[in-house]
């Protein structure tokens, strides 16, 4: 099903005239059914010249981990707005970081990450758990996220990974 989805999503996307800077995985978390955040992220990241694989909503941890291991993406961008982002994000980032291929892969999470207003206080916890960037709904802007994407290494993925301890 993952391959089918990639094909479907690719129909409309990644038609940039720019040479692709690599592939980014955009994904929701296991319990989150929302997708507008993911559609927006996809189009935004595509505008930086990346090909985006959008796994959509309610992505089981296994599907996310397996897809990321297979693709070896330039960035993993997780979006969540249902209030379970902290819980689901802490769990899945540990599993992603456990994979040798993904030890150094940039990973970010953003959205409404808890059921209350205190998302900004969670950033240190999520960073410590393995994320490289945390973008809570009320405490960050799309400009900050765009700056993060723009600052990603521009080297082709193969060259970059050669310099990584694996």
């Amino acid at each position: 099903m993952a391959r089918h989805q990639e094909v479907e999503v690719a129909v409309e996307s990644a038609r940039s005239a720019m040479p692709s800077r690599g592939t980014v995985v955009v994904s929701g978390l296991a319990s989150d059914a929302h997708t507008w955040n993911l559609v927006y992220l996809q189009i935004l990241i595509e505008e930086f010249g990346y090909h985006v694989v959008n796994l959509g909503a309610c992505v089981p941890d296994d599907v996310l981990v397996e897809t990321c291991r297979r693709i070896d993406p330039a960035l993993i961008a997780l979006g969540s707005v249902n209030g379970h982002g902290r819980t689901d994000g802490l769990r899945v980032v540990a599993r992603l970081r456990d994979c040798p291929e993904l030890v150094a892969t940039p990973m970010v999470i953003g959205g409404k990450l808890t059921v209350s207003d205190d998302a900004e206080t969670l950033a240190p916890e999520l960073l410590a758990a393995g994320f490289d960037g945390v973008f809570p709904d009320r405490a960050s802007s799309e400009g900050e996220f765009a700056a993060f994407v723009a600052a990603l290494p521009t080297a082709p993925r193969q060259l970059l990974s050669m310099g990584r301890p694996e």
Partner: protein
Amino acid sequence: MTARVPDRPSRPEQGFGAFVRARADAGALVVQPRMGFGDPAWMRAGLAATRAARAHTVGTLTLDSYTRLGDLAAIERALHDGMPLNGYPIATHSDSMTRAVLEGVMDADFPVQVRHGSALPQHIFRRLIALGLTATEGGPVSYCLPYGRVPLADSIDAWRECTELFAQARDLGAEPHLETFGGCMMGQLCPPSQLVALSVLEALFFRAHGCRSISVSYAQQTHPGQDTAAVLALRRLCADLLPDVEWHVVVYTYMGAYPVTEAGAYRLLREAAELAVRTGSERLIVKTVAESRRIPTVAENVAALEYAARAAEANRTTAHDPGTDSQTYAEALALVEAVLNLASDLSRALLLAFRRGYLDIPYCVHPDNRGLTRSRLDEEGRLRWAYTGALPLGHLVRTGQSHKVTAAGLLADLSFLRQKMDREAVADRSSSELTGSV
């Protein structure tokens, strides 16, 4: 225009649908929150406060997202770790606990609807039937495509099984009632004609599997005039296609990016209440001032219910019905007829329709959605097709010059109504300050 049918359901006098019908016949709009808490005491308090609100209300028991997905282990972990759930875990709390939550609150004067969002809801329907709960909502398409990765065919099978089980549960003491969620697909940016078509098709699906008390949903979009035409088209199609069913229309207050100011939020809620009244809709799902930030409190929900009821009372004007002479009606009819003509079995017709792109939801990333359509707002805020893909609308819609969707353009469309309501609310306040009026 209301469907008073000759062949009445078996127990028309009882249940969610009959309650709403009786209020509507008395000229009142029923208002309802979207409310769910993991804690049984909070859930009970929320239902009691909804009941006590100064409005004609029905109750809502929204389930948490782990229950929706059937991930009961995650609920155990969350409860153990003290992490709050975003709804009521009906399959985890014991039935006696849930009965205690409802005891003395839910009765013939205060029916309660269970809301979930599950593509594979067998475990939820089993609990509803065990608990004697007779009103819920969803649909094989609308609870599948926007929310996850469950194959559409699996969702259709599951919903067929659940609808049949539920419809047979008439010995629960009330007529089982199902609401289509199809009119709310994706929350925003699905053109009204496809919302109407999906709501009608899901109602036909429920009817085909034995349900005789149905509500059809429509979510407020970005333009009052366009929404009015859409709800009237929905009513006309239901009157024609659901002759032997007790049905009503439920309008959802805007489900997209909500205004951030209190005045803007209330302005949008008022427009939703006015849409409901203008179109003869019988029920309204409200939203609160907290919507743009977090799950609302009980007090915020009660304030929204009472405000919506006052707004409905204050505006009793009825819209002129353009009948079949409406673009939205013509498009919706074309979509419904094209799907029904694909196969005599509606389950098969729905599957074929998505496979061929006769139904195709803009911006839906589900693997079974073709993804060849796009939508956009025009200069006046009307929701338009940008690309119609393989939809059978070639004779009705001219998309003209193609509009490439950019991130900035999508964000502008997604936040159009939020910004409009916030801006107009501020302008209203300054003008009333200037004139000294309240």
